[in-house]
């Protein structure tokens, strides 16, 4: 057993951390995160050049990473910097393109030349791929995909839709062929509604459910790692604030009521870090879905605790837009809304470890 990151991953983390600190100081981050396409073309080109996108795909699929720990390395840093760029959408797309042998598209995305997003949720299908109603008809798709992460800045849209045979298929749509309604999200970064009405589409697979689940698990793992990065930073900000803020003639860090609360959420951050390592280590194992569901359940609980406690312990300042900590808190809360929340994950754990059946 060994919990030290490899030299390569340490280098990626270091260089990405420096890059993000340079490109996205708090104020600039908020400009990008809430305006226009919620995306900075220069920054995207820079992170492609750094190899951040290539790290998300295995060597045999055209990248140079792709393991669970590669994903967590990248996204933990993204979380530390609240990176607003459409990394999640492109991760999902990359994993799906790779799974379907679309080497040219993988290459273009890794190079930063093209961007993609994956539309799966519909307003009536949250939490259950079987409820998807978007449908393929010959070479066209009809339906509507909601809150498509990175959809606002994508050249290509991957879409999960029902095949004529009633299976879950995977299709590629040129973004300019679809109606794309873009918006920023409350915690920064962009998404879009994708409206498809007999829109031309290319079928990548007419039975893609397993590949989609695998890609979504990669996305869940990424979100978990992102949360750990954000929690680490928010904890440090809160600790520093408690030491600096004076009330009743002394730093509020000297009050045991606050000390113990900080300890309690710090313990949950360590638990969160542990479960992310566990999930990353099981990405290629049979227990992948269970490990990821466990991780995202715990992350959802820990993220909410850390976010709410940190706002509270900052007092009024934690409520302000100007203070960077509030944006970390928002991100932590909203991560739970992406790719299945705490309860969704718990239901999955319960289904996969049915305790009414002896092991």
């Amino acid at each position, binding site marked *: 057993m060994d919990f*030290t990151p*490899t030299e390569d991953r340490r280098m990626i983390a270091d260089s990405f951390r420096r890059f993000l600190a340079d490109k996205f100081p708090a104020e600039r981050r908020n400009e990008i995160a809430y305006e226009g396409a919620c995306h900075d073309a220069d920054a995207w080109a820079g992170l492609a050049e750094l190899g951040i996108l290539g790290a998300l795909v295995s060597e045999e699929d055209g990248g140079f990473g792709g393991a669970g720990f590669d994903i967590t390395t990248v996204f933990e840093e993204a979380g530390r910097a609240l990176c607003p760029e459409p990394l999640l959408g492109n991760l999902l797309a990359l994993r799906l393109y790779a799974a379907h042998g679309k080497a040219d598209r993988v290459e273009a995305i890794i190079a930063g030349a093209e961007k993609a997003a994956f539309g799966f949720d519909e307003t009536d299908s949250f939490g259950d791929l079987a409820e998807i109603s978007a449908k393929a008809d010959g070479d066209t798709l009809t339906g509507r995909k909601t809150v498509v992460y990175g959809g606002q800045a994508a050249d290509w849209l991957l879409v999960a839709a029902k095949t004529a045979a009633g299976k879950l298929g995977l299709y590629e749509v040129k973004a300019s062929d679809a109606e794309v309604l873009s918006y920023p999200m409350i915690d920064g970064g962009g998404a879009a509604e994708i409206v498809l009405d007999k829109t031309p589409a290319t079928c990548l697979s007419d039975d893609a459910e397993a590949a989609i689940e695998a890609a979504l698990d990669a996305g869940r793992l990424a979100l978990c790692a992102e949360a750990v990065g954000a929690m680490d930073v928010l904890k440090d900000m809160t600790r520093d604030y408690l030491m600096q803020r004076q009330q009743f003639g002394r730093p509020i860090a000297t009050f045991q009521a606050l000390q113990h609360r900080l300890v309690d959420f710090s313990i949950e951050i360590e638990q969160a870090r542990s479960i992310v390592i566990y999930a990353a280590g099981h990405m290629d194992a049979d227990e992948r879905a269970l490990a990821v569901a466990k991780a995202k359940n715990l992350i959802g609980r820990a993220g909410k605790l850390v976010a709410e406690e940190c706002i509270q312990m900052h007092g009024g300042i934690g409520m302000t837009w100007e203070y960077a900590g509030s944006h970390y808190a928002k991100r932590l809360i909203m991560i739970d809304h992406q790719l299945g929340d705490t309860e969704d994950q718990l239901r999955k754990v319960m289904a996969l470890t049915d305790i009414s059946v002896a092991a």
Partner: protein
Amino acid sequence: MDLNYTPEEEAFRQEVRDFLKENLSEELATKVRNGRELNKQDMESWHATLQSRSWLAVTWPAEYGGPGWDAVQRHIFDEELALANAPRTVPFGLAMLGPVLIKFGTEEQKATILPRILSGEDWWCQGYSEPGAGSDLASLKTRAVRDGDHYVINGQKTWTTLGQFADKIFCLVRTSTEGKPQQGISFVLVDINTPGIEMRPIKLIEGGFEVNEVFFTDVRVPVSNLVGEENMGWTIAKYLLGHERTNIAGVGASSEALNQLKALARKVKRNGAPLAKDPLFAAKVAEVEIDLEAMRLTNLRMLFGSSDAQGSVSSMLKIKGTVIRQAINDLSRRALGPAAAPFPSEEVIGNYGVAPAEAATNAANYFNNRKLSIFGGSNEIQRNIITKETFGA
């Protein structure tokens, strides 16, 4: 990153399993699994079994009769013993006094005392807490006054676990009132049969007897029974408390308790179906299981030395480990519904059969294990330790 044990570590695990299969009687394991009280002979015979393989004093170096294991081996050993429902070894001589003597004792103390711990000739107990000195241990008042070649001890110790079986007690006593309270404390060894010592049992919340009060009235102890130097007892006490932390999270024991909880939930019925089918109950079990999975990894991260904050991580593990264990105990009690109520006497368990035999003590164990977050440095004291590290104060 590599989450796998080495083939050597796996082979060691198998060796432990084989040993347990051969040497842990079904009778004793059942007693542990069913949460029944172990008597002195149960514990002594289990110690002897482990010692037959030199696997008793797991933290001692080989030259003193320990197996010479590293932290990972000790972890595997603890985990396998817990999963097999082996009794936990009594820690006072093995995990506490032994390491203290190896570090601070004279050659003579080591030569005379350590072998008697291994052989079971001496059962040690601990004299630390006092009625007025719990979390604030340094405020202890039991006095040891020098009189020629003896100390004369007066005062009272409390929460002395299994003192009723003990031959000897190691004590923190005040030998000076000068300076800070921590500076006037000494660590002395006392024969329990010395005139002037009285041991009184304390009945606990669930009705059991495991802790005692110990009264000292003009108890004369040879000065040669001092460990280390006079007034350096606090250093020794801190060493003792910080010594053996690999098993502080109790991952193995909680895993086994969770296995039993699930088995119980399949057995008992609620609303016409096995309790395990109730999604509200199953959700609570799943949540604890997730927390335990994370803690298993946190524990391994500490063991394999990756953590940058070893000290506070062990305090974190103490807090989280006890909270998780208590949550499992809570669910195990609730799983029984009204059947948790009978006071678990031999007759009730043996003849009435209200609850399954393996669960008849679940309510008692729930109450008893509220101690987990209180002893060994209360969870609030652990939070203070972590705070010190966090704020660097």
